[in-house]
């Protein structure tokens, strides 16, 4: 029996790379009066609902998808969170 899993993938630019979007947003926030920011980074948020027999299996597939399509390891890194849909 397959179960439904809800995965959330957070993709951001590798540390060390320029993040023009993040810095532009930071400056905009600062000019709005938020002066206490030490960093803003901008990335992608991808929700994937997938079916698999086990959580392990789902996780495995998710990682594959990240490696193949969702993330370009040359410039991006990612983390994820996965759980069974209740």
């Amino acid at each position, binding site marked *: 029996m397959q179960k439904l899993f809800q995965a959330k993938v957070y993709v951001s630019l*590798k540390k*060390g*790379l*320029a*993040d*023009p979007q993040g810095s*532009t947003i930071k400056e905009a926030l600062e000019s709005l009066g938020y002066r206490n920011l030490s960093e803003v980074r901008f990335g992608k948020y991808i929700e994937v609902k997938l079916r698999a027999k086990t959580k392990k299996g789902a996780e495995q597939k998710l990682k594959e998808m990240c490696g193949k399509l969702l993330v370009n390891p*040359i*410039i991006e890194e990612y983390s994820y969170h996965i759980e069974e849909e209740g």
Partner: protein
Amino acid sequence: MKEPERITLDLVRAHGLTEEEYKKIKDMLGRDPNFTELGIFSVMWSEHCSYKSSKPLLRMFPTSGENILIKAGEENAGVVDIGEGLAVVMKMESHNHPSAVEPFQGAATGVGGIIRDIFTMGARPIALLDSLRFGHLGNGHNRYLFSGVVGGIAAYGNCMGIPTVGGEVYFDETYEGNPLVNVMCVGVARRDNLVKARAGGLGNPVLYVGADTGRDGLGGASFASRELTEESDKDRPAVQIGDPFKEKLLLEACLELLNTGVVVGMQDMGAAGLTSSTSETASRGNSGMRIDLSLVPRREEGMIPYELMLSESQERMLVIIKRGKERETRRVFDKWDLHAVPIGEVTDDGYLTVLDKDRRVAEIPVKFLTEDAPVYMREEREPEYLGKIKDVSISTIPEPQDYDDVLKILLASPTISSKRWVYEQYDYMIRTDTVLRPGGDAAVIRIKGTEKAIALTCDGNGRYCFLDPYEGGKIAVAEAARNVVCVGAKPLAITNCLNFGNPTKPYVFWQFRRCVEGIADACGILETPVSGGNVSFYNENPKGAIDPTPVVGMLGLIEKMDFLCTPWFKKEGDLIILLGECREEIGGSEYLQLIHGLKAGQIPRLDLERERAVQNTCLEVIRAHLVSSAHDCSEGGLAVTLAECCISNSGKERGAIIELEAFPEILSIRMDALLFGETQSRILISCHPRNFLQIQRVARRNKVPCARLGVVTGDRLTIRRIKKRVLDLSLKELGEKWRKGLSHGDD
């Protein structure tokens, strides 16, 4: 990163320097270089910055002419006079390797780099063109590269507000794993507003403007050094992230600053960043420069001098201003929310002196880095493959049964089909000067406030150059010139980007030499000097070097707007005329490749005198307002050219009937060669019947064959031979094939 204790030979090699080169450095300095200095030498002596393998051959290019204001090599880009006190600055550059690993950012930062090269000289960028090569689209990875590259060019160019008005795209397995992404930028300046990339005036301040420095593409110009980077590999990606917004601010601020008259010299920090911009401006100005790295704005902590000097962070400029003008300068950059940081000053001792606060981290005579860099004559040998593939006997190739099918296949092939899917992602109309939009033979950009316009195109055919690099080089120039002539412009000058394999392979270097010779000869006879360019070596995939692919960017001038001509048929009843002749030349053709799977044969031979005569004829009849349309015959031959004339004006398609007996050659040439052969020096024009005699007269005076092929009529393209149909297709069918070649109907 940490500085290594000692400079070992391994470290030298990891920097892409040979043992002899290292010895030369030691001899020049009279001592061992330190680590920072080693880095500086390695990037300045890299192929990318020093042109050490190509320089001797590039000297063959004709670089002067009555319209050349600044010659190639003297500055960041050559400058061409277009009259009325105006000058055009243009240059093309490759970003092949970054685009192979990160197509979107790789292509985007390529656009950013070439734009900086243009406004560095005080010119406002007014147009971009892109010349692209990929492996076949059947492969998902190639589709990813293709759409990523186009998306990246669009993202950067559109955001900058510079129209991308032309370009080309080819698909061939030779580019599998090594796509080519060449971008050309064209700018216009008032002649007296041009800026030089020179540092002069003892004590003048040197400013750093733009983005902060990070560890981006460290040493990208020189080496991919495993040994050095093992553990820091993670935080040292070879691809940068483009920031077109910052670049737009830089562009506007720099041009505004130029108008205040405080600028002495300016250079973008491209490859080899701070290193090349400081040493090159000092070298050109016969001066020296002292900078203090502790003042350089940085994005990351703990960066050592080596890293700061070699970083290739994007969107940065080096500006040398007149002493005492700091306040004016700051006002302009403040307005645009940019920091302009004084990091040093111009000296007169001929040295590049790099400090880190009080510590002297490098001290090198600038000429050692520039003029005295090594130059090599590489070994060369004619490749063996040529013997095998050149002689393909046409008689062994079966003639197709159905020419309708062949034409449909050709039109639908991605290389020939409509490139709308590509150029509609580019803002080609911004600045409201694009008078002839993508889809014609060349783009036409008017110059507001004058009667004039310029025509721009780029061309190059790797398959031709693989089969015959000399003729292929010639053809690249000739076709580009022909494209410009077809829209009513006089060819003025070229820029180029030479994409080749590893130059230390003798056959690659032979290909390079022959291409350069071909380009040089064609430029000489067609009187289009080379105003600048770029060389990209080491384009290889596991199967070996890519096909030699020189890309020529051509600038033409339309003196009066009403000379403008377009490629598509316009009026029912107009006559269709071919300038030039058809020969039995199917070697190297798109037809041979696509229908028969053959990349072989003798490519069309180009007679430069004939080419010139055809172009002169075409220009003369356009300027005398005798023709309704003009389109050059290129990939896919006569049949494809005819089809394009019929269908390329979307919504206003026009049919044609062609009678083949009109060709004097008809008896001696095979039908497939006649329809699909790619004989050079041919232009298809259409005209009102009453103008035919006059056109013939002009052609005869220029000794150019001029045959009447048929008439513009109806809604089909019909080709007949002695009343018998050879090919007959509705415009609807032709249009559908041609339009869907790239887009597969997704809109």
